[in-house]
């Protein structure tokens, strides 16, 4: 598979979204929490509390929507500042109640628009980066589809970052890169290659800890094995002191 094949697969409309992961992994235990307490409830971000093998966790996901109607209401997974602020509110809450945080990332990027700028898109993302770095509870981010730049990173200053085999994570969309560098959107495939945005490339660069294989019949085994993996990881992290956890997280990013 070429890098561009991965880009296409990561964006495919029939790919499971955060809601699918949440439903299949946490079932009825998931209780959704809404709003940033400052401006609005951004539907591009879904968040709440759930039970994982008997233990409470905070779950946050960037949600693209599963059909056109949903996609419209969820702004295709492109969050506004209030979405990032909702996510931060839930992370702080997780810290308070000492439960781990799991983030599902799937976005082409933070939204670019008048309201987003007026309400401080840059400031909202910056605050998440800063606050997540010293969050006193384990954070795990799983890239399930697209990981578009700062809008994805705002949910990925984590102790571990995993990627689905066909997910992508990039500083810029390959289309944007091709049109800026070569003034030729036709060179998207070439740009995809150059940007090193596949799970394989990012694993080699040390940007992610784990690649999650996608079985042919993605529904069948993926969610169960992922559930076990997440539970094991949180179990392992639970014995680490908050100070040590923060030090390790800082060094995780310090090395780049």
């Amino acid at each position: 598979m070429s890098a561009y094949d991965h880009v296409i697969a990561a964006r495919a409309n029939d790919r499971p979204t955060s809601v699918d992961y949440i439903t299949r992994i946490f079932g009825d235990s998931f209780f959704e929490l809404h709003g940033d307490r400052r401006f609005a409830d951004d539907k591009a971000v879904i968040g709440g509390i759930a039970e994982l093998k008997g233990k409470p966790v905070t779950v946050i996901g960037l949600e693209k929507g599963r059909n056109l109607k949903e996609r419209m209401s969820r702004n295709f997974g492109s969050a506004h500042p209030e979405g990032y602020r909702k996510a931060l509110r839930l992370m702080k809450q997780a810290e308070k109640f000492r439960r781990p945080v799991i983030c599902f990332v799937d976005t082409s990027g933070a939204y670019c628009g008048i309201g987003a700028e007026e309400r401080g898109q840059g400031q909202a993302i910056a605050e998440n980066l800063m606050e997540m770095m010293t969050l006193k509870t384990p954070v795990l981010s799983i890239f399930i589809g697209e990981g578009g730049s700062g809008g994805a990173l705002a949910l990925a200053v984590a102790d571990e970052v995993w990627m689905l085999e066909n997910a992508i994570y990039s500083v810029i969309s390959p289309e944007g890169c091709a049109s800026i560098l070569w003034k030729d959107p036709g060179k998207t495939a070439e740009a995809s290659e150059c940007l090193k945005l596949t799970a394989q490339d990012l694993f080699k660069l040390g940007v992610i800890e784990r690649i999650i294989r996608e079985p042919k019949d993605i529904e069948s085994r993926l969610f169960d094995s992922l559930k076990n993996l997440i539970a094991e990881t949180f179990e392992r992290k639970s014995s680490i002191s908050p100070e040590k956890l923060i030090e390790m997280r800082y060094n995780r990013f310090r090395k780049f």
Partner: protein
Amino acid sequence: MPDFFNFLKPKNELENQGGFAENHPYIPEELWIKCPVCKNAVLSSDLMDNHKVCPKCNYHFRIAARQRIEMTADEGSFEEMDADMSSTNKIGFPDYEKKLRSAKISSGENESVITGTAEICGEKTVIAVMNSQFMMGSMGTVTGEKITKAFEYATANSLPVIIFTVSGGARMQEGILSLMQMAKTSGAAKLHSDAGLLYITVLTDPTTGGVTASFAMEGDIILSEPRALIGFAGPRVIEQTIRQKLPKDFQSAEFLLEKGFIDAVVQRKDMKKTLAKLIRLHKTETKEEVRSE
């Protein structure tokens, strides 16, 4: 599709898309300079005497990082850190070495940021100044590393940090490693903040993309030069996304002040004394004295 990387230029330079720093309104050697905003011809020496601000319309010309340091630091007080650090092509991006070479030549610098320590009206501080002449101030690994080291030095030595930002955003030739700099610098800023130390950012024209979405917006106090363009997405990207024209002065420093995202718009001539005043107001001697008693 929203793109995080922004490649910004003032409107008068839009024709020069893709070029990096060639056509910016830096002050050339000629006797008369045409102001790009009011179009008046200004005597070059008058401009220099006026902190490179147009005496007719108050347009703040972009200035190189070294000149900024000269204007801000007490004479002879600046000591540069990590001056020799320079970028390599870590992900093998096409033509990146060539771009780096030409950026070094056109800017006379090794990277898009200069860091060090300085005194400002006698107040010791760590200072970092970004340089738009180096690949439009884009943030590469070395940019992030120098800023991170500056924060770590300040934290270890209980010093404030002042950063002058100017940036088109992340540096796409470094791919994901450029994005990681946002997390790295933010982490260093957070540890500095948790140590109870002062961080002031001064946003200059233009500050966008990954720099806006990280350390530029993380200051305890955020200042800006008049009319600087400040945003997450660049105006062209927004116009393409929403398919309409943006209102005049959208994303200007004054606009951000009104929306509550910066503390003050400060004239260039007043910047040095403003910074010195703010540092003095945060001096910790009194606190230390109380503690030791």
